[in-house]
């Protein structure tokens, strides 16, 4: 998974073509760390079909808030730079996968 920050978010997510999934997390967020392995598994499974990124919102707070993310964990889907879907708090990875298939 690609680590995105305030330096490369514009280029890697907003300017990117196709489907981008961004997993917002922070080192203090235990539920985020619970979720992360299954997001990594999805990234592997859909390699080449969607781009998977993770964003540490503790060190990129303003960027997260600019994306209207004010709570963790949050997973956002972007299509051609436009936010098209979002999951927050109790995230079931099955729902994420279903949404991914729908958007592909």
């Amino acid at each position, binding site marked *: 998974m690609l680590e995105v920050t305030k330096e490369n978010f514009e280029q890697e997510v907003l300017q990117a073509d196709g489907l981008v999934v961004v997993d917002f997390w*922070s080192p*203090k*967020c*235990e*539920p*985020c*760390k*619970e*979720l992360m*392995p299954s997001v990594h598994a999805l990234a592997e499974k859909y390699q080449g079909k969607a781009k998977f990124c993770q964003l540490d*919102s*503790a060190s990129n*707070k303003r960027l*997260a*808030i600019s994306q*209207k*993310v*004010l*709570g*963790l*964990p*949050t997973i956002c889907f972007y299509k051609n730079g436009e936010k098209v879907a*979002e999951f*927050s*708090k109790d995230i079931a990875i099955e729902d994420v996968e279903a949404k991914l298939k729908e958007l592909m």
Partner: protein
Amino acid sequence: MTEIYDILIVGGGPAGLSAGIYGSRSRLKTVILSKGKPGGQAATTQDLENYPGFSRGTTGPALMEKMAAHAKDFGTEIIREEVIGLELEGDVKITKTKNGKEYHSKTVILAPGAEPRTLNIKGENIFRGKGVSYCATCDADFFEDLDVIVIGNGDAAVEEAMYLTKFAQTVTIIVIHDEGILDCNKASAERAFANPKLKWVWNSVLEEIKGDGLVESVVLKNIKTGELSEMETNGVFFFVGTVPKTELVKGKIDLDAQGYIITNEQMETSIPGVYAAGDARAKYLRQVITAASDGAVAAVAAEKYLAEEEGFKEQVLSVSEPVMVAFWTPQVEESIDAVSRLEQVAGTLNGVVRLVKIDTYRNKRVAKRYGVTEIPSVVFFHKGEVVGKLLGDFTDKDVTKIIESLT
């Protein structure tokens, strides 16, 4: 054949981890299935300073990591799997997980824990992750130099509010009670009242959360005057208690009206060999220490169950000759006499029949299973099956008659 665990524990919070420590230290094959990283709710609490031996400065995640390491050190297997199905009846319990695996075990300890309660206030759902939060350690970073409110006034609410003051500009606690009255412990209340960054709104409840994409304000209602007032804020943290995560066992074991698992003092549920521990259990105090205590009791009770069941199988069910099982207890004099008469009968028959004695004071479960309601009683087994019963007092003749019919 699939391997069979002695103890399978559902949930990796303090209850599950303690059960793991006690189980594996007794050399029982013990596994914990934990949805995420072990630690449970305690791992999302920053300041945790009431666990004995761990004073100020202790954090929830650090304590939970130590507990997990402790359990692993004694040989507990900790597997990250979410349990989605349980078959608890029968000698071998079957646990199914989300990724399609099945685990077999002789006993199950349910320690699924609890999760934050939601109030379903207008706006609560749509602003989740947009300023509405149930986890201070997860989201506090976002609110640096912003204003937040906290709903609730129990231990969790007041302690998490104090944690939030390290980040937010202001933290306002909305309290339903009269001024100065909090449901939390006194030590936390004193510290909270002395904290200059904490503000208070008394006699009030949350009516609505408003915003445009992100939370911008809340509407509060004064319960004494009925007056509504709007207050600007960037975040709303809910700490209004928890609900047990017991959906999975609904209809399978006895729960109370709130959904908590009912157990006795040995943590036994309504199904033999199935125990419950921690926040999901109906009990008086839900803390890390009581969860740990439940876990220890459950594991020891499970160990005793395994020994008794194993013993019963070896001495009664898998024996080729007929077996008389005498149910007695030292407190009932007739039963002591009955046992000695049975010993004489077994002696004269010399090897034709075996005698096994069960003290019902120490082992109530086997008596219950075979419908033994009176002491003394004798239940006759042959090739693993019940073939005769004498409930209450009996004569030697009654006994020999049954044995003769079997041989």
